[in-house]
């Protein structure tokens, strides 16, 4: 196996909640709680889970847009978590992010040309104005826009076109890794497919590696090589995409997959309806965090912290019942 491009080890992010007169820390949101995984060059790892489970926080702490509470992130041989500001900035050439909201993530007062060209200036990648404009025009073409769009402003573009601009901006510095945080969630179904296809084409063309964050399980299945499922700050299952979708092992993954409505009225499936809501990440349940909603739980589930165990090559599950450690 080749060297991983990215290694995430025991990553934690606890957000303090302050209260009282002295603004003391009164509690902590366990947003990301001991997350570890590798990213192989050229692969797409999908990160799924319900709202608030810590997907975006994971993505942002990897880039140190949010400082981690503890844990390590290695990009090739560099420890991202200990880099100083300057080295971190030059590492941003290698790792880029695309956001969900193509409206909010583009400065409305900047032309498309300066939005995409900004990073070229920061990283001194285009010595002259002319070189910069040429590169921007080329990037616009790469993402399926017209080169003469570069003098226009974001409001003149549709949602899908703005997402293309966001992708061109990320591509400007020729990164190796792109963290895509819900890149198609705000788009219409017919436009989603355009962006998914574009991301796939760019990956093939430039050998990009993606961390693809989304709550839409069908989109993630389509684009990912491997998929990790998060619940309350932890990865509960990680496996090759096909394996995870056809042979899920964690009771939460099973319930999640069975809840996706299938666009075919002739298929009839058994749905696993979960009781209640996701518990608060401020005081997450003890032991296995899923035990408050799990139909398979045994008494020890509320005591034993669960860690990932390999059940088949590359297929890891954090459930003592399903991995045969505990039985009824």
């Amino acid at each position: 196996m080749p060297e991983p491009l990215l290694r995430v080890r025991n990553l934690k992010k606890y957000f303090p909640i302050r209260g009282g007169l002295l603004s003391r820390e009164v509690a902590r949101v366990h947003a990301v709680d001991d997350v570890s995984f590798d990213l192989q060059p050229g692969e797409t790892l999908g990160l799924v889970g319900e709202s608030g489970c810590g997907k975006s926080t994971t993505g942002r702490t990897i880039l140190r847009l949010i400082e981690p509470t503890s844990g390590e992130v290695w990009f090739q041989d560099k420890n991202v978590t200990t880099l100083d500001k300057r080295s971190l900035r030059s590492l941003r050439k290698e790792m880029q992010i695309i956001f969900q909201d193509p409206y909010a993530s583009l400065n409305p007062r900047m032309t498309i040309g300066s939005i995409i060209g900004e990073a070229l200036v920061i990283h001194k990648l285009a010595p002259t104005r002319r070189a910069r404009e040429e590169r921007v025009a080329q990037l616009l073409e790469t993402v399926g826009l017209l080169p003469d769009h570069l003098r226009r402003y974001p409001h003149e573009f549709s949602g899908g076109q703005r997402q293309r601009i966001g992708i061109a901006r990320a591509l400007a510095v020729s990164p190796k890794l792109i963290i895509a945080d819900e890149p198609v969630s705000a788009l219409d179904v017919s436009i989603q497919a355009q962006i998914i296809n574009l991301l796939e084409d760019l990956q093939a063309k430039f050998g990009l590696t993606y961390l693809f964050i989304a709550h839409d399980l069908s989109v993630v299945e389509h684009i990912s090589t491997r998929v990790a499922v998060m619940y309350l700050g932890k990865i509960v299952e990680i496996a090759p995409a096909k394996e995870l979708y056809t042979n899920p092992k964690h009771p939460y993954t099973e319930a999640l997959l069975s809840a996706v409505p299938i666009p075919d009225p002739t298929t009839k499936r058994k749905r696993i309806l979960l009781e209640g809501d996701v518990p608060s990440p401020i005081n997450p349940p003890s032991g296995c965090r899923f035990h408050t909603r799990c139909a398979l739980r045994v008494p020890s589930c509320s005591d034993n912290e669960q860690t990932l165990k390999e059940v088949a090559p590359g297929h890891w599950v954090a459930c003592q019942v399903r991995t045969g450690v505990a039985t009824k």
Partner: protein
Amino acid sequence: MAERLLDVKGLKTYFFTDEGVVRAVDGVDFYINKGETLGIVGESGSGKSVTALSIMRLIPTPPGRIVEGTIHYSGRNLLELPPAQMRKIRGKEISMIFQEPMTSLNPVFTVGEQIAEAIRLHEGLGRRDAMAKAVDMLKLVHIPNAERRVKEYPHQLSGGMRQRVMIGMALSCNPKLLIADEPTTALDVTIQAQILELLNELKAKLGMAIMLITHDMGVIAETAQRVVVMYGAQVVEEASVGEIFKEPLHPYTQGLLRSIPRIDLAATKKQKLEAIPGTVPTLRGDIRPGCRFAPRCSFAKPQCTAADPPIKDIRTGHRVACILY
């Protein structure tokens, strides 16, 4: 023969803004039978919500106005009713739930007070009886500890519970038609599954019809009996759920179905998604005659842009607006 509950004909709702006229709904026809679930799908901005608000007569005027058409409910044209009579229909005969439950619940009143208020308005019950009925409604929508929850404020509830409260409130006067505008779009899939299950259960129990607006073809497949597909403020296709998936006729419907990734086919070989090229049309300003899907349609011919393609019955219950048929 199924009995018609609602019949919308030639509906046009426009917004007269400083930047020009927005033809949000531009000649829409469809009907809903008693007790059925009609799904309405379409891209963002295709006029789904404005259609729903027109039925409720809740279009903000100005800038909006229903400029043409009729909406018959149980034989009466809602567009000709005096406001006082329309208020009686709204909530009692037809009620609506919205995409974002937080914006439609009042943050300063408890959920019980809000449901009880709706009940008192329509059923003339006393304060105590209305509150007791509010507790019953919360139980109906499976909110645990209903007696306690009824005294809580909206912000104390999760998104899924708020949407349950909205459904409870909408159903408190036994409407015959529930308009649900993207009732699960803001929710997680596991919560969506709970809410759709609840709607199906309540529909069977109470015998009401549902007009379900969604952009999710999976939700349509699992809950609706018939579907109306909207594109650019118009209806482009209408069919039973079985037919729309098996034999979609309009090129937009066909493209839409081919562009969605299919989780149920995960075991088979991956294929590239077939995206529909181009962008969603704008409804502002002058709209040229002809098919609004033409700029994105791979079958487009000169005659497509000469005049609006009329909607034609292809077979019983299956209509399409496209010159190919």
